[in-house]
Protein backbone atom coordinates (compact mmCIF):
# COMPACT_ATOMS: atom_id res chain seq x y z
CA UNK A 1 0.00 0.00 0.00
CA UNK A 2 2.65 2.49 1.00
CA UNK A 3 4.85 1.71 -1.93
CA UNK A 4 2.00 2.23 -4.34
CA UNK A 5 1.23 5.60 -2.80
CA UNK A 6 4.92 6.46 -3.04
CA UNK A 7 5.02 5.42 -6.68
CA UNK A 8 1.97 7.48 -7.55
CA UNK A 9 3.43 10.42 -5.66
CA UNK A 10 6.76 10.24 -7.44
CA UNK A 11 5.05 9.90 -10.79
CA UNK A 12 2.97 13.00 -10.02
CA UNK A 13 6.16 14.82 -9.15
CA UNK A 14 7.73 13.67 -12.38
CA UNK A 15 4.73 14.93 -14.31
CA UNK A 16 5.00 18.35 -12.73
CA UNK A 17 8.67 18.58 -13.51
CA UNK A 18 8.18 17.50 -17.10
CA UNK A 19 5.39 20.02 -17.34
CA UNK A 20 8.10 22.57 -16.89
CA UNK A 21 6.52 23.88 -13.71
CA UNK A 22 9.89 24.41 -12.12
CA UNK A 23 10.68 27.04 -14.73
CA UNK A 24 8.70 29.43 -12.54
CA UNK A 25 11.78 29.43 -10.38
CA UNK A 26 13.62 31.30 -13.08
CA UNK A 27 11.02 34.02 -13.11
CA UNK A 28 11.15 34.14 -9.34
CA UNK A 29 14.92 34.36 -9.31
CA UNK A 30 14.84 37.21 -11.77
CA UNK A 31 12.25 39.00 -9.71
CA UNK A 32 14.21 38.65 -6.50
CA UNK A 33 17.47 39.71 -8.09
CA UNK A 34 15.91 42.78 -9.64
CA UNK A 35 14.23 43.70 -6.39
CA UNK A 36 17.37 43.23 -4.35
CA UNK A 37 19.45 45.35 -6.67
CA UNK A 38 16.86 48.11 -6.96
CA UNK A 39 16.10 48.16 -3.28
CA UNK A 40 19.76 48.13 -2.37
CA UNK A 41 19.94 51.67 -3.63
CA UNK A 42 17.26 52.96 -1.27
CA UNK A 43 17.82 53.95 2.34
CA UNK A 44 18.90 51.47 4.92
CA UNK A 45 16.47 49.52 7.08
CA UNK A 46 13.71 49.52 4.54
CA UNK A 47 15.57 47.18 2.19
CA UNK A 48 15.24 44.22 4.48
CA UNK A 49 11.58 45.02 4.83
CA UNK A 50 10.99 45.15 1.11
CA UNK A 51 12.99 42.03 0.37
CA UNK A 52 11.16 40.01 2.98
CA UNK A 53 7.75 41.36 2.09
CA UNK A 54 8.26 40.97 -1.63
CA UNK A 55 10.06 37.66 -1.41
CA UNK A 56 7.60 35.96 0.88
CA UNK A 57 4.59 37.34 -0.94
CA UNK A 58 6.01 36.10 -4.23
CA UNK A 59 6.71 32.66 -2.76
CA UNK A 60 3.16 32.55 -1.48
CA UNK A 61 1.49 33.71 -4.69
CA UNK A 62 3.61 31.69 -7.10
CA UNK A 63 3.02 28.61 -5.02
CA UNK A 64 -0.70 29.20 -4.84
CA UNK A 65 -0.93 29.52 -8.58
CA UNK A 66 1.06 26.34 -9.11
CA UNK A 67 -0.96 24.50 -6.49
CA UNK A 68 -4.21 25.47 -8.10
CA UNK A 69 -3.21 24.95 -11.70
CA UNK A 70 -1.68 21.56 -11.18
CA UNK A 71 -4.17 20.57 -8.53
CA UNK A 72 -7.20 21.04 -10.72
CA UNK A 73 -5.83 18.57 -13.22
CA UNK A 74 -4.80 15.95 -10.73
CA UNK A 75 -7.99 14.00 -10.97
CA UNK A 76 -10.21 15.61 -13.54
CA UNK A 77 -7.56 15.62 -16.26
CA UNK A 78 -6.93 11.95 -15.71
CA UNK A 79 -10.61 11.20 -15.96
CA UNK A 80 -11.05 13.29 -19.09
CA UNK A 81 -8.04 11.83 -20.80
CA UNK A 82 -8.91 8.35 -19.57
CA UNK A 83 -5.38 7.70 -18.44
CA UNK A 84 -7.04 6.58 -15.24
CA UNK A 85 -8.51 3.42 -16.75
CA UNK A 86 -5.30 1.48 -16.95
CA UNK A 87 -4.22 2.68 -13.53
CA UNK A 88 -7.36 1.69 -11.69
CA UNK A 89 -7.49 -1.71 -13.35
CA UNK A 90 -4.32 -2.47 -11.41
CA UNK A 91 -4.26 -3.36 -7.73
CA UNK A 92 -4.40 0.33 -6.81
CA UNK A 93 -7.15 1.33 -4.44
CA UNK A 94 -8.93 4.50 -5.31
CA UNK A 95 -8.02 6.14 -2.06
CA UNK A 96 -4.36 5.27 -2.56
CA UNK A 97 -4.54 7.10 -5.86
CA UNK A 98 -5.88 10.26 -4.23
CA UNK A 99 -3.39 10.20 -1.39
CA UNK A 100 -0.52 9.53 -3.77
CA UNK A 101 -1.52 12.46 -5.96
CA UNK A 102 -1.65 14.70 -2.93
CA UNK A 103 1.83 13.79 -1.79
CA UNK A 104 3.16 14.21 -5.29
CA UNK A 105 1.90 17.76 -5.61
CA UNK A 106 2.78 18.64 -2.02
CA UNK A 107 6.27 17.37 -2.67
CA UNK A 108 6.54 19.45 -5.83
CA UNK A 109 5.54 22.56 -3.93
CA UNK A 110 7.92 21.80 -1.10
CA UNK A 111 10.82 21.45 -3.51
CA UNK A 112 9.77 24.60 -5.32
CA UNK A 113 9.53 26.53 -2.07
CA UNK A 114 12.90 25.24 -0.96
CA UNK A 115 14.58 26.72 -4.00
CA UNK A 116 12.64 29.92 -3.63
CA UNK A 117 13.68 30.15 0.01
CA UNK A 118 17.28 30.03 -1.06
CA UNK A 119 16.55 32.88 -3.42
CA UNK A 120 14.97 34.95 -0.66
CA UNK A 121 17.87 34.37 1.70
CA UNK A 122 20.41 35.19 -0.94
CA UNK A 123 18.62 38.45 -1.67
CA UNK A 124 18.38 39.17 2.04
CA UNK A 125 22.06 38.53 2.47
CA UNK A 126 22.80 40.83 -0.40
CA UNK A 127 20.92 43.75 1.05
CA UNK A 128 21.86 43.39 4.66
CA UNK A 129 25.27 41.79 4.31
CA UNK A 130 24.80 39.49 7.25
CA UNK A 131 22.19 37.28 8.74
CA UNK A 132 20.25 38.42 11.73
CA UNK A 133 17.86 36.69 14.05
CA UNK A 134 15.23 37.82 11.64
CA UNK A 135 16.27 34.99 9.37
CA UNK A 136 14.85 32.51 11.83
CA UNK A 137 11.45 34.14 11.71
CA UNK A 138 11.58 34.18 7.95
CA UNK A 139 11.96 30.42 8.08
CA UNK A 140 8.89 30.19 10.26
CA UNK A 141 6.98 32.33 7.78
CA UNK A 142 8.09 30.02 4.97
CA UNK A 143 7.00 27.03 6.99
CA UNK A 144 3.56 28.60 7.41
CA UNK A 145 3.43 29.26 3.68
CA UNK A 146 4.10 25.60 3.04
CA UNK A 147 1.25 24.78 5.42
CA UNK A 148 -0.96 27.03 3.32
CA UNK A 149 0.11 25.10 0.24
CA UNK A 150 -0.84 21.82 1.84
CA UNK A 151 -4.30 23.13 2.56
CA UNK A 152 -4.88 24.60 -0.87
CA UNK A 153 -3.54 21.48 -2.56
CA UNK A 154 -5.88 19.27 -0.61
CA UNK A 155 -8.80 21.58 -1.37
CA UNK A 156 -8.05 21.70 -5.07
CA UNK A 157 -7.72 17.93 -5.08
CA UNK A 158 -11.11 17.71 -3.41
CA UNK A 159 -12.76 19.91 -6.00
CA UNK A 160 -10.93 18.16 -8.82
CA UNK A 161 -12.43 14.86 -7.76
CA UNK A 162 -15.90 15.87 -8.78
CA UNK A 163 -15.93 19.02 -10.85
CA UNK A 164 -14.37 20.33 -14.02
CA UNK A 165 -10.93 21.92 -14.03
CA UNK A 166 -12.27 25.42 -14.52
CA UNK A 167 -14.78 25.23 -11.68
CA UNK A 168 -12.21 23.63 -9.42
CA UNK A 169 -9.88 26.55 -10.04
CA UNK A 170 -12.63 29.06 -9.32
CA UNK A 171 -13.65 27.34 -6.08
CA UNK A 172 -10.10 26.92 -4.86
CA UNK A 173 -9.15 30.49 -5.64
CA UNK A 174 -12.29 31.82 -3.96
CA UNK A 175 -11.54 29.84 -0.84
CA UNK A 176 -8.01 31.20 -0.87
CA UNK A 177 -9.27 34.78 -0.94
CA UNK A 178 -12.02 34.21 1.60
CA UNK A 179 -9.69 32.22 3.81
CA UNK A 180 -7.26 35.10 3.90
CA UNK A 181 -9.98 37.09 5.65
CA UNK A 182 -11.18 34.24 7.84
CA UNK A 183 -10.71 36.17 11.06
CA UNK A 184 -12.73 39.08 9.74
CA UNK A 185 -15.38 36.61 8.64
CA UNK A 186 -15.75 35.37 12.18
CA UNK A 187 -16.00 38.99 13.30
CA UNK A 188 -18.78 39.62 10.81
CA UNK A 189 -20.54 36.46 11.93
CA UNK A 190 -20.50 37.54 15.56
CA UNK A 191 -22.32 40.72 14.61
CA UNK A 192 -25.29 38.92 13.06
CA UNK A 193 -28.20 37.29 14.81
CA UNK A 194 -30.33 34.21 14.73
CA UNK A 195 -30.09 31.66 11.94
CA UNK A 196 -27.82 33.94 9.95
CA UNK A 197 -25.42 33.86 12.85
CA UNK A 198 -25.32 30.07 12.92
CA UNK A 199 -24.81 29.83 9.19
CA UNK A 200 -22.23 32.61 9.10
CA UNK A 201 -20.29 31.19 12.03
CA UNK A 202 -20.39 27.74 10.49
CA UNK A 203 -19.10 29.07 7.22
CA UNK A 204 -16.45 31.10 9.02
CA UNK A 205 -15.09 28.01 10.73
CA UNK A 206 -15.32 25.86 7.63
CA UNK A 207 -13.30 28.23 5.52
CA UNK A 208 -9.56 27.57 5.67
CA UNK A 209 -7.93 29.97 8.06
CA UNK A 210 -5.19 31.48 5.95
CA UNK A 211 -5.14 34.71 7.91
CA UNK A 212 -3.56 32.96 10.88
CA UNK A 213 -0.91 31.46 8.61
CA UNK A 214 -0.01 34.76 7.03
CA UNK A 215 2.67 36.28 9.20
CA UNK A 216 4.63 37.95 6.45
CA UNK A 217 4.02 41.48 7.71
CA UNK A 218 4.93 40.78 11.31
CA UNK A 219 8.02 38.82 10.31
CA UNK A 220 9.11 41.68 8.10
CA UNK A 221 8.99 43.86 11.20
CA UNK A 222 10.97 41.33 13.23
CA UNK A 223 8.06 40.41 15.45
CA UNK A 224 8.57 37.08 17.19
CA UNK A 225 6.20 34.20 16.67
CA UNK A 226 5.08 32.22 19.69
CA UNK A 227 5.95 28.56 19.70
CA UNK A 228 2.43 27.76 20.72
CA UNK A 229 1.12 29.44 17.59
CA UNK A 230 3.46 27.34 15.47
CA UNK A 231 2.14 24.23 17.15
CA UNK A 232 -1.49 25.16 16.80
CA UNK A 233 -1.11 26.23 13.20
CA UNK A 234 0.71 23.03 12.29
CA UNK A 235 -1.97 20.92 13.87
CA UNK A 236 -4.68 22.96 12.20
CA UNK A 237 -3.14 22.70 8.75
CA UNK A 238 -2.68 18.97 9.20
CA UNK A 239 -6.21 18.47 10.31
CA UNK A 240 -7.74 20.65 7.62
CA UNK A 241 -5.69 18.96 4.93
CA UNK A 242 -6.80 15.58 6.22
CA UNK A 243 -10.39 16.76 6.11
CA UNK A 244 -10.17 17.84 2.49
CA UNK A 245 -8.42 14.63 1.47
CA UNK A 246 -11.05 12.54 3.24
CA UNK A 247 -13.67 14.46 1.32
CA UNK A 248 -11.85 13.82 -1.94
CA UNK A 249 -11.55 10.11 -1.19
CA UNK A 250 -15.19 9.76 -0.26
CA UNK A 251 -16.32 11.48 -3.44
CA UNK A 252 -13.92 9.59 -5.66
CA UNK A 253 -14.77 6.18 -4.20
CA UNK A 254 -18.28 6.35 -5.52
CA UNK A 255 -17.64 8.13 -8.75
CA UNK A 256 -18.60 6.47 -12.03
CA UNK A 257 -15.83 7.26 -14.49
CA UNK A 258 -17.05 8.22 -17.88
Amino acid at each position, binding site marked *: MNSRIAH*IASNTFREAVRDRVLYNLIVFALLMSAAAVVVGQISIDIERLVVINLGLTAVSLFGMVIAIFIGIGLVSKEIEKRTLYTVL*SRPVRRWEFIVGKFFGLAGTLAVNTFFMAIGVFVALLYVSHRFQNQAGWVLVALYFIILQFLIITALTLFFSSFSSPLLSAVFAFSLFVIGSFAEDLRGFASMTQGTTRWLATGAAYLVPNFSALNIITSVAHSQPVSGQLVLYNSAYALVYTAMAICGAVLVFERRNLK
Partner: protein
Amino acid sequence: MAAIEILGLEKTYSIGFWRKRPKHALRPLDLKVEEGEIFGFLGPNGAGKTTTLKLLMGLIFPTAGSARILGMAVDDPRMKAQIGFLPEQPYFYDYLTARELLEYYGQLSGVEAKQRWFRVNEVLQRVGLPDVGGVQLRKFSKGMLQRVGIAQAILHDPKVVFFDEPMSGLDPMGRREVRDLMAQLKVEGKTVFFSTHILSDAEALCDRVGIIHQGELRGVGAVADLTSSVHGKVEVVWQGTTVPASLRALGAECHVTRDTVRAMLSEANQDAAIEALRRERLRLVSVTPVRTSLEDYYLQKLQPANATVGVGAKA
Protein backbone atom coordinates in the same frame (compact mmCIF):
# COMPACT_ATOMS: atom_id res chain seq x y z
CA MET B 1 -13.60 -22.27 -11.06
CA ALA B 2 -14.83 -20.01 -13.80
CA ALA B 3 -12.44 -17.28 -14.77
CA ILE B 4 -15.26 -14.77 -15.12
CA GLU B 5 -18.68 -15.12 -13.62
CA ILE B 6 -21.32 -12.48 -14.22
CA LEU B 7 -24.67 -12.68 -12.44
CA GLY B 8 -27.47 -10.34 -13.31
CA LEU B 9 -25.11 -7.44 -13.90
CA GLU B 10 -27.07 -4.37 -14.81
CA LYS B 11 -26.32 -0.71 -15.48
CA THR B 12 -28.95 1.93 -15.91
CA TYR B 13 -28.25 5.61 -16.32
CA SER B 14 -30.83 8.28 -15.80
CA ILE B 15 -30.44 10.98 -18.37
CA GLY B 16 -32.21 14.23 -18.78
CA PHE B 17 -32.38 17.11 -16.38
CA TRP B 18 -35.91 17.40 -15.06
CA ARG B 19 -37.72 14.22 -15.84
CA LYS B 20 -35.13 11.53 -15.60
CA ARG B 21 -35.47 8.92 -18.26
CA PRO B 22 -33.67 5.68 -17.67
CA LYS B 23 -31.13 4.55 -20.21
CA HIS B 24 -30.42 0.86 -20.01
CA ALA B 25 -26.77 0.64 -20.92
CA LEU B 26 -26.72 -2.97 -19.81
CA ARG B 27 -29.71 -5.15 -19.04
CA PRO B 28 -29.26 -7.96 -16.54
CA LEU B 29 -26.38 -10.01 -17.90
CA ASP B 30 -25.56 -13.60 -17.01
CA LEU B 31 -22.35 -14.91 -18.42
CA LYS B 32 -19.64 -17.37 -17.55
CA VAL B 33 -16.18 -17.69 -19.05
CA GLU B 34 -14.00 -20.67 -18.19
CA GLU B 35 -10.30 -20.52 -17.61
CA GLY B 36 -8.14 -20.90 -20.68
CA GLU B 37 -10.85 -19.75 -23.06
CA ILE B 38 -10.76 -17.02 -25.60
CA PHE B 39 -14.12 -15.37 -25.38
CA GLY B 40 -15.29 -12.82 -27.93
CA PHE B 41 -17.86 -10.25 -26.96
CA LEU B 42 -19.47 -9.11 -30.19
CA GLY B 43 -21.86 -6.31 -30.91
CA PRO B 44 -22.31 -3.09 -32.81
CA ASN B 45 -21.14 0.23 -31.45
CA GLY B 46 -23.05 1.32 -28.40
CA ALA B 47 -24.26 -2.20 -27.64
CA GLY B 48 -22.86 -2.24 -24.13
CA LYS B 49 -19.52 -3.96 -24.63
CA THR B 50 -17.46 -1.18 -23.13
CA THR B 51 -19.99 -0.73 -20.34
CA THR B 52 -19.59 -4.38 -19.44
CA LEU B 53 -15.83 -4.10 -19.42
CA LYS B 54 -15.90 -0.97 -17.30
CA LEU B 55 -18.18 -2.69 -14.84
CA LEU B 56 -15.80 -5.62 -14.66
CA MET B 57 -12.85 -3.29 -14.09
CA GLY B 58 -14.62 -1.44 -11.32
CA LEU B 59 -14.50 1.85 -13.19
CA ILE B 60 -18.26 2.20 -12.95
CA PHE B 61 -20.63 0.67 -10.44
CA PRO B 62 -23.54 -1.63 -11.33
CA THR B 63 -27.13 -0.72 -10.69
CA ALA B 64 -27.74 -4.36 -9.82
CA GLY B 65 -26.07 -7.73 -9.98
CA SER B 66 -22.51 -8.78 -9.39
CA ALA B 67 -19.45 -10.20 -11.06
CA ARG B 68 -16.57 -12.29 -9.89
CA ILE B 69 -13.24 -12.69 -11.60
CA LEU B 70 -11.13 -15.70 -10.56
CA GLY B 71 -13.62 -16.14 -7.78
CA MET B 72 -12.89 -12.74 -6.27
CA ALA B 73 -14.88 -9.54 -6.14
CA VAL B 74 -14.42 -6.85 -8.73
CA ASP B 75 -12.73 -4.38 -6.37
CA ASP B 76 -10.39 -6.89 -4.79
CA PRO B 77 -6.77 -5.81 -5.28
CA ARG B 78 -5.60 -9.41 -5.12
CA MET B 79 -7.72 -10.11 -8.14
CA LYS B 80 -6.50 -7.03 -9.97
CA ALA B 81 -2.93 -8.19 -9.64
CA GLN B 82 -3.88 -11.09 -11.85
CA ILE B 83 -5.75 -9.34 -14.61
CA GLY B 84 -4.74 -7.02 -17.40
CA PHE B 85 -6.90 -4.47 -19.17
CA LEU B 86 -6.57 -2.71 -22.50
CA PRO B 87 -9.21 0.00 -22.90
CA GLU B 88 -10.54 1.19 -26.22
CA GLN B 89 -8.27 3.81 -27.79
CA PRO B 90 -6.05 4.00 -24.77
CA TYR B 91 -4.36 7.13 -23.52
CA PHE B 92 -1.27 7.15 -21.48
CA TYR B 93 0.74 9.79 -19.71
CA ASP B 94 2.31 11.35 -22.76
CA TYR B 95 5.16 12.91 -20.84
CA LEU B 96 6.55 9.47 -20.05
CA THR B 97 8.58 7.26 -22.33
CA ALA B 98 7.27 3.79 -23.13
CA ARG B 99 9.74 2.20 -20.80
CA GLU B 100 8.94 4.60 -17.97
CA LEU B 101 5.24 3.94 -18.34
CA LEU B 102 5.70 0.21 -18.22
CA GLU B 103 8.05 0.52 -15.26
CA TYR B 104 5.48 2.65 -13.44
CA TYR B 105 2.67 0.23 -14.22
CA GLY B 106 4.87 -2.60 -13.18
CA GLN B 107 5.43 -0.91 -9.85
CA LEU B 108 1.71 -0.44 -9.38
CA SER B 109 1.02 -4.04 -10.31
CA GLY B 110 3.48 -5.28 -7.78
CA VAL B 111 6.08 -6.62 -10.17
CA GLU B 112 9.26 -6.96 -8.17
CA ALA B 113 11.99 -4.48 -8.83
CA LYS B 114 14.51 -7.12 -9.85
CA GLN B 115 12.25 -8.56 -12.50
CA ARG B 116 10.81 -5.34 -13.81
CA TRP B 117 13.56 -4.41 -16.18
CA PHE B 118 13.53 -7.78 -17.83
CA ARG B 119 9.81 -7.95 -18.06
CA VAL B 120 9.54 -4.52 -19.58
CA ASN B 121 12.05 -5.30 -22.27
CA GLU B 122 10.55 -8.68 -22.89
CA VAL B 123 7.07 -7.31 -23.31
CA LEU B 124 8.23 -4.46 -25.55
CA GLN B 125 9.86 -7.06 -27.76
CA ARG B 126 6.76 -9.13 -27.78
CA VAL B 127 4.45 -6.37 -28.96
CA GLY B 128 6.88 -5.36 -31.66
CA LEU B 129 8.30 -2.18 -30.12
CA PRO B 130 11.85 -3.16 -29.32
CA ASP B 131 13.56 0.10 -30.15
CA VAL B 132 11.23 2.82 -28.95
CA GLY B 133 11.47 2.25 -25.22
CA GLY B 134 13.10 5.60 -24.73
CA VAL B 135 10.74 7.64 -26.86
CA GLN B 136 8.11 9.81 -25.21
CA LEU B 137 4.62 8.50 -25.66
CA ARG B 138 3.41 11.78 -27.04
CA LYS B 139 5.33 10.92 -30.18
CA PHE B 140 3.72 7.54 -30.67
CA SER B 141 1.32 6.79 -33.50
CA LYS B 142 -2.06 5.29 -32.81
CA GLY B 143 -0.89 1.84 -33.71
CA MET B 144 2.13 2.13 -31.47
CA LEU B 145 -0.02 3.26 -28.59
CA GLN B 146 -2.22 0.25 -29.13
CA ARG B 147 0.80 -1.99 -28.82
CA VAL B 148 1.91 -0.23 -25.67
CA GLY B 149 -1.57 -0.81 -24.39
CA ILE B 150 -1.25 -4.50 -24.97
CA ALA B 151 2.18 -4.45 -23.40
CA GLN B 152 0.93 -2.90 -20.17
CA ALA B 153 -1.91 -5.38 -20.06
CA ILE B 154 0.31 -8.44 -20.13
CA LEU B 155 3.35 -7.03 -18.39
CA HIS B 156 2.69 -8.59 -15.02
CA ASP B 157 1.80 -12.00 -16.45
CA PRO B 158 -1.88 -11.90 -15.55
CA LYS B 159 -4.17 -14.90 -15.66
CA VAL B 160 -7.07 -13.11 -17.30
CA VAL B 161 -6.72 -10.44 -19.93
CA PHE B 162 -9.45 -8.02 -21.00
CA PHE B 163 -9.16 -6.25 -24.34
CA ASP B 164 -11.62 -3.64 -25.56
CA GLU B 165 -11.42 -3.47 -29.37
CA PRO B 166 -7.79 -4.58 -29.49
CA MET B 167 -7.56 -4.30 -33.29
CA SER B 168 -8.67 -0.71 -33.56
CA GLY B 169 -6.12 1.58 -35.10
CA LEU B 170 -3.99 -1.23 -36.46
CA ASP B 171 -3.11 -1.92 -40.06
CA PRO B 172 -3.60 -5.46 -41.42
CA MET B 173 -0.05 -6.39 -40.44
CA GLY B 174 -0.62 -5.16 -36.94
CA ARG B 175 -3.90 -6.97 -36.66
CA ARG B 176 -2.28 -10.17 -37.70
CA GLU B 177 0.38 -9.73 -35.06
CA VAL B 178 -2.19 -9.04 -32.37
CA ARG B 179 -4.19 -12.07 -33.42
CA ASP B 180 -1.10 -14.20 -33.17
CA LEU B 181 -0.30 -12.73 -29.79
CA MET B 182 -3.76 -13.47 -28.49
CA ALA B 183 -3.53 -17.02 -29.71
CA GLN B 184 -0.18 -17.24 -28.00
CA LEU B 185 -1.72 -16.01 -24.75
CA LYS B 186 -4.18 -18.85 -24.91
CA VAL B 187 -1.37 -21.33 -25.40
CA GLU B 188 0.20 -19.90 -22.23
CA GLY B 189 -2.96 -20.83 -20.41
CA LYS B 190 -4.39 -17.34 -20.02
CA THR B 191 -8.04 -16.48 -20.37
CA VAL B 192 -8.77 -13.78 -22.92
CA PHE B 193 -11.96 -11.77 -22.93
CA PHE B 194 -12.17 -9.28 -25.73
CA SER B 195 -14.78 -7.16 -27.36
CA THR B 196 -14.90 -6.40 -31.04
CA HIS B 197 -17.21 -5.73 -33.90
CA ILE B 198 -14.94 -7.39 -36.44
CA LEU B 199 -16.41 -10.84 -36.94
CA SER B 200 -13.61 -12.38 -38.89
CA ASP B 201 -11.23 -11.89 -35.98
CA ALA B 202 -13.71 -13.44 -33.61
CA GLU B 203 -14.27 -16.34 -35.89
CA ALA B 204 -10.59 -16.99 -36.21
CA LEU B 205 -9.67 -16.64 -32.58
CA CYS B 206 -12.50 -17.41 -30.23
CA ASP B 207 -13.58 -20.55 -28.53
CA ARG B 208 -16.86 -19.00 -27.59
CA VAL B 209 -18.65 -15.80 -28.44
CA GLY B 210 -21.42 -13.75 -26.98
CA ILE B 211 -23.52 -11.34 -28.97
CA ILE B 212 -24.81 -8.23 -27.33
CA HIS B 213 -27.12 -5.62 -28.77
CA GLN B 214 -28.80 -2.65 -27.16
CA GLY B 215 -27.57 -3.68 -23.76
CA GLU B 216 -28.97 -7.20 -24.00
CA LEU B 217 -27.18 -10.50 -24.50
CA ARG B 218 -28.73 -12.02 -27.60
CA GLY B 219 -26.78 -15.19 -28.00
CA VAL B 220 -23.90 -17.19 -26.59
CA GLY B 221 -22.19 -20.29 -27.88
CA ALA B 222 -19.09 -22.03 -29.10
CA VAL B 223 -17.96 -20.83 -32.48
CA ALA B 224 -17.64 -24.34 -33.76
CA ASP B 225 -21.24 -25.09 -32.88
CA LEU B 226 -22.61 -21.90 -34.27
CA THR B 227 -20.91 -22.24 -37.57
CA SER B 228 -21.49 -25.90 -38.18
CA SER B 229 -22.94 -26.59 -41.50
CA VAL B 230 -26.56 -26.65 -40.50
CA HIS B 231 -27.78 -26.19 -43.97
CA GLY B 232 -26.08 -29.23 -45.40
CA LYS B 233 -25.23 -27.53 -48.62
CA VAL B 234 -22.15 -27.62 -50.78
CA GLU B 235 -20.80 -25.17 -53.23
CA VAL B 236 -19.42 -26.59 -56.49
CA VAL B 237 -17.31 -24.45 -58.72
CA TRP B 238 -16.23 -25.32 -62.26
CA GLN B 239 -14.64 -23.63 -65.20
CA GLY B 240 -16.64 -22.58 -68.18
CA THR B 241 -19.96 -20.92 -68.52
CA THR B 242 -22.24 -23.81 -69.32
CA VAL B 243 -24.64 -25.23 -66.82
CA PRO B 244 -25.52 -28.82 -67.74
CA ALA B 245 -29.17 -29.65 -67.59
CA SER B 246 -28.48 -32.59 -65.33
CA LEU B 247 -27.15 -30.30 -62.70
CA ARG B 248 -30.11 -28.03 -62.99
CA ALA B 249 -32.23 -31.10 -62.51
CA LEU B 250 -30.46 -31.69 -59.19
CA GLY B 251 -31.85 -28.42 -57.96
CA ALA B 252 -28.64 -26.45 -58.24
CA GLU B 253 -28.71 -22.69 -57.91
CA CYS B 254 -26.14 -21.45 -60.39
CA HIS B 255 -24.26 -18.26 -60.60
CA VAL B 256 -22.14 -17.51 -63.65
CA THR B 257 -19.20 -15.14 -63.55
CA ARG B 258 -16.80 -14.56 -66.45
CA ASP B 259 -15.41 -18.01 -66.79
CA THR B 260 -16.55 -19.90 -63.72
CA VAL B 261 -19.85 -21.15 -62.50
CA ARG B 262 -20.74 -21.43 -58.85
CA ALA B 263 -23.54 -23.75 -57.98
CA MET B 264 -25.19 -24.48 -54.63
CA LEU B 265 -26.83 -27.77 -54.08
CA SER B 266 -27.62 -30.05 -51.19
CA GLU B 267 -24.90 -32.22 -49.74
CA ALA B 268 -26.73 -35.37 -50.73
CA ASN B 269 -26.37 -34.51 -54.40
CA GLN B 270 -22.71 -33.76 -54.15
CA ASP B 271 -21.47 -36.96 -55.76
CA ALA B 272 -24.08 -36.82 -58.51
CA ALA B 273 -23.03 -33.33 -59.37
CA ILE B 274 -19.36 -34.21 -59.62
CA GLU B 275 -20.27 -37.15 -61.79
CA ALA B 276 -22.33 -34.88 -64.05
CA LEU B 277 -19.49 -32.50 -64.50
CA ARG B 278 -17.12 -35.28 -65.35
CA ARG B 279 -19.49 -36.53 -67.98
CA GLU B 280 -19.76 -33.11 -69.53
CA ARG B 281 -15.97 -32.81 -69.40
CA LEU B 282 -16.20 -29.63 -67.40
CA ARG B 283 -13.22 -28.73 -65.30
CA LEU B 284 -13.98 -28.93 -61.58
CA VAL B 285 -12.39 -26.15 -59.54
CA SER B 286 -13.62 -26.77 -56.01
CA VAL B 287 -16.18 -28.41 -53.80
CA THR B 288 -16.74 -26.62 -50.52
CA PRO B 289 -19.19 -27.37 -47.70
CA VAL B 290 -21.21 -24.30 -47.02
CA ARG B 291 -21.09 -23.25 -43.36
CA THR B 292 -23.30 -20.79 -41.65
CA SER B 293 -20.93 -17.97 -41.15
CA LEU B 294 -20.68 -16.30 -37.87
CA GLU B 295 -21.92 -13.28 -39.71
CA ASP B 296 -25.21 -14.94 -40.40
CA TYR B 297 -25.59 -15.93 -36.80
CA TYR B 298 -24.61 -12.45 -35.72
CA LEU B 299 -27.02 -10.66 -38.01
CA GLN B 300 -29.76 -12.99 -37.02
CA LYS B 301 -29.21 -12.25 -33.36
CA LEU B 302 -29.28 -8.57 -34.02
CA GLN B 303 -32.88 -8.76 -35.09
CA PRO B 304 -35.45 -7.24 -32.70
CA ALA B 305 -35.79 -8.93 -29.37
CA ASN B 306 -38.60 -11.30 -30.16
CA ALA B 307 -36.02 -13.50 -31.87
CA THR B 308 -34.41 -16.32 -29.90
CA VAL B 309 -32.68 -15.15 -26.81
CA GLY B 310 -29.92 -17.68 -26.45
CA VAL B 311 -28.64 -20.90 -27.77
CA GLY B 312 -27.63 -21.76 -24.24
CA ALA B 313 -25.77 -20.09 -21.47
CA LYS B 314 -23.00 -22.61 -21.39
CA ALA B 315 -21.01 -24.08 -24.19
